[in-house]
């Protein structure tokens, strides 16, 4: 039933909430062993998309097939093979860490002994084994997210779905989660990762969908996206008369964009541009490598669009 190692296959998916079209005809596939990122700002439709994959929200059009089965509310077989780290923390505050894990494991109809072994192994994996008997309230934000990762691994899922696993965490906690996720990746765990952070997407994802207002704007590997959409380098020039600069740079190969007080020049190589600008008097010029952020902002517009 599954072909070419495609675990999730989505075709023209549409989801509406009343008059609002939250997901507007998107198509993509997730292959075995890859980390597929969905990168987009708040409200892009990331959570809505993965909820449909998780079989906890019905779609309004298109087809979603997971492990060769059609996604749908009663699809226990799909739910049984997914591991989910939800955007919103839903650890049970009435229970200890161990109780949380053991009750959750039982939900998958695993034998008690298996549950116990996996609980211990996964708590160790996220470095929370020593805290097993503590209450959830005593955990920091980062620890809670790690526990959610451990919990999602209990059923040894075929695909892990991570919905903004590090949003709101401090840098240390974030790097700790990234380490754990990279370690899972190296073990061949397939992942779908929702994120608003460019850095997270660059660090973890093999392939990316850039999502905005319910649509997929671009798809590709992070470095490919950067090369194709903006080139290698960016020159930022602040507070200057744009027309004069562009005239001065005539004949050189670059793309440009003007936002507020800044002129952005995207190019493969910035040396010639900088040489010409050198004769231009006192300019505030910043030269840096192109990042995913440039791709993202180029595609979605640098202005506020909410």
């Amino acid at each position: 039933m599954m072909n070419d190692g495609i675990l999730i296959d989505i075709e023209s998916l549409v989801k509406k909430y009343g008059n609002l079209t939250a997901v507007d005809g998107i198509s993509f596939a997730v292959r075995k062993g890859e980390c597929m990122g969905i990168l987009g700002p708040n409200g892009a439709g990331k959570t809505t998309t993965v909820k449909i994959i998780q079989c906890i929200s019905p779609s309004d059009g298109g087809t979603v097939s997971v492990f060769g089965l059609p996604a749908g509310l009663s699809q226990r077989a799909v739910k049984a093979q997914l591991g989910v780290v939800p955007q919103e923390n839903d650890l049970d505050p009435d229970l200890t860490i161990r109780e949380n894990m053991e009750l959750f494991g039982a939900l998958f109809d695993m034998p008690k002994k298996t549950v116990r072994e996996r609980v211990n192994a996964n708590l160790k994996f996220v470095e929370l084994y020593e805290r097993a008997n503590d209450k959830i309230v005593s955990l920091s934000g980062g620890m809670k997210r790690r526990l959610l990762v451990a919990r999602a691994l209990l059923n040894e899922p075929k695909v892990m779905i991570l919905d903004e696993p590090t949003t709101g965490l401090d840098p240390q906690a974030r790097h700790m989660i990234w380490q754990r996720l990279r370690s899972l990746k190296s073990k061949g765990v397939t992942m779908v990762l929702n994120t608003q952070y460019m850095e997270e997407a660059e660090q973890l994802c093999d392939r990316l969908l850039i999502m905005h207002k319910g649509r997929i704007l671009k798809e590709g590997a992070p470095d490919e996206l950067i090369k194709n959409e903006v080139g290698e380098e960016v020159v930022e020039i602040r507070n200057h008369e744009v027309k004069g600069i562009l005239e001065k740079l005539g004949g050189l190969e670059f793309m440009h964009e003007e936002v507020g007080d800044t002129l952005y020049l995207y190019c493969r190589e910035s040396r010639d541009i900088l040489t010409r600008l050198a004769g231009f008097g006192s300019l505030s010029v910043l030269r840096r490598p192109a990042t995913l952020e440039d791709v993202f902002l180029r595609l979605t517009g640098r202005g506020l669009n909410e």
Partner: protein
Amino acid sequence: MSESMLSHRIYYVWKRNLVSYRRFAIPSFIASLGEPILYLIAMGIGMGSYMGLVDGMPYLNFLAPGLLVSTSMFSATYECTFGAFVRMKIEKVYNALIVTPLTVEEVVAGEILWGMTRSMLSGFIMLGVLLAFGIPNWKSFLLMPLLWVAVGFFFSSLAIIVTSFAPHFDFFTYYLELYIMPMFFFSGIFFPLDRMPAAVKVISHFMPLTYAVRVSRSFIYGNADWSVLLNLAALIIAGLFIFYWAMHRMKKRLIK
């Protein structure tokens, strides 16, 4: 609704509530019992001493069967309104459960099963308290659990429906003050219905607790006949409808 929506997984939801309950068992136990015991003492002993015989028995004895079901109704109601709302809205327990192979229907059924458990527990405690006054006999211990199952099932299911509509806690105050409390007073617990004005009698027919009180009296005083079974059956059948509606409503609330 297909049958496969409900399975043994209901037990896991029930188990989760049990594990969580063990921690708060004593305070919540006392809270759920305080009210009926207060009524028993204030009304039964206090008022009873001025009242002489009611329906041919001391007032305390008249009161006892009704309180045996009302305590069970209150437990189920609190558990599946305030308790369920905390789990659903604040603790996000339902969200966590439905991502696993559990269905919304099973979450609801598990919650109701737990509500029934609580309602059974408070029933037994009340029975124990009444034992101190020499009221129930050994047969009550066999028959009453049957009734508590029906009462717990009906009122837990009804409470889940209310919860499925509730935007915030205050919402439950309306339910309690406009429905549960009036029912408590006009279902024949505190005074025999046959001496009430016609209007009260008519209203009492629409109050499920009335049927439960009637069944309870005949269980405790051993004058059960076929009409008692009919009352019990009515409660269970009504409960089944409410239960299906509760599953439907919760699905609407949780699945968007």
